[in-house]
């Protein structure tokens, strides 16, 4: 039995039908920030199948605890939640040692960011970011405050559903992915131009984390489950082919 982290080969061709197109005019900023030419398709070389390797000692002990990692003189305001899940590849194998980085608004929908001007207040005890490495089963978890929805300049009355931004770095640079997690039951999901940039209902469903009652911490925190799939690679090595028939 092989694990994905031990087997390296070319990645499966990316199925772009599960992703938003670069040009999605209802999300207005994409109009001038989308290439007009076709992407040039590359067969993977070492440049694509390799990628940065991260170590546990690069992260701090509170990096995956957004409730405590910026607490100054109290706890952040809002609903306490745990978010957890598995990072797997398209073959269903765990991606171990994947770097999962998250960032989000506070309970009022305000980001701790120089450029965020929204009227909702900054929470003095909430930074809004965290990171974690997956374990040998591809499992990760972090604890945070449920983010609030917020308005944004697209059309004049567009609102983002509550969401957590995710950045995932797997085994190979070609697996690099940024996405957003939404919360089950949020009525704003259906009208969000960023969500709707994805023209694939099943792919959208994959971004909506269900409430996971069994993972709740009794008398403390609710839990949401968010599983992530990165690109899979061929289980057989084509080392000679990739590296030149030595």
């Amino acid at each position, binding site marked *: 039995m092989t694990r994905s982290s031990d087997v390296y080969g070319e990645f499966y061709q990316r199925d772009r039908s599960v992703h938003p197109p670069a040009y999605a005019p209802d999300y207005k900023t994409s109009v001038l920030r*989308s290439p007009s030419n076709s992407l040039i398709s590359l067969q993977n070389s070492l440049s694509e199948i390799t990628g940065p390797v991260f170590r546990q000692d690069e992260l701090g002990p509170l990096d995956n605890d957004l409730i405590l990692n910026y607490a100054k003189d109290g706890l952040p305001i809002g609903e306490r939640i745990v978010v957890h899940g598995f990072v797997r590849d398209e073959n269903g194998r765990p991606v171990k040692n994947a770097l999962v980085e998250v960032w989000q608004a506070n309970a009022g929908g305000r980001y701790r960011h120089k450029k965020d001007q929204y009227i909702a207040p900054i929470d003095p005890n909430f930074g809004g970011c965290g990171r974690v490495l997956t374990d040998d089963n591809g499992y990760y978890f972090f604890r945070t405050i449920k983010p609030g929805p917020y308005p944004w300049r697209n059309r004049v009355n567009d609102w983002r559903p509550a969401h957590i931004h995710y*950045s995932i770095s797997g085994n190979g640079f070609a697996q690099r992915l940024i996405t957003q997690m939404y919360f089950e039951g949020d009525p704003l999901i259906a009208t969000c131009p960023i969500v709707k940039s994805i023209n694939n209902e099943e792919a959208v469903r994959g971004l909506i984390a269900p409430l996971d009652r069994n993972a709740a911490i009794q008398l403390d925190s609710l839990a949401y489950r968010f599983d992530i799939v990165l690109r899979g690679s061929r289980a057989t090595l084509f080392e000679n082919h990739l590296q030149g028939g030595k």
Partner: protein
Amino acid sequence: MVNQFNYLKETASQTAGPYVHIGLAPHQAGFDIFENNFGNVLVGPGTKGERIRIEGRVIDGSGTPLRDVLLEIWQANAAGRYNHPADKQDKPLDDDFRGWGRACSNFETGVYSFETVKPGAVMGRNGRLMAPHVNLWIVARGINIGLNTRIYFSDEVDANAKDPVLNLIEWEVRRKTLIAQREERGGEVVYRFDVHIQGDNETVFFDI
């Protein structure tokens, strides 16, 4: 009815949004939270190879630089080997070089930069050597799925001419969008690499 494979589907991409810095570069967002931050300096005191800076801007379809963009690079060391277990080329690893960096464009000027070393050549597919290059990944508000491209070097004329990836680009005029221009500034080697997301001189992006 044929049995279905049970492959999973890749999770859908979403834009990094305007506040990507909070999670990936909190200092740029304006606060200090992690003890260890990932940044744009790839070299340590012991890193082998020619020290270079890669610097440029990412420009949108109107000619305006993106001031909220985040870039990551991944490259081989000066000997031409990636610091990753899948790279089994018979070349030395460099303990003081991971080969990965992350940079944000400046909020006013839109300029990004990396401090690194010039990579060596890496063996490509079918025994064809690839010219020295750096792999680049770009995300920002308005970019729905990260853009992948490569940075090649203007002083590698012969290697570039034989590079299997550059040669895959049918339009010779577009190949030059992947060549960073070498300059020397006060004893420092700087490679200038502007990315044009759209419009005249649109950079070649890859589906890798």
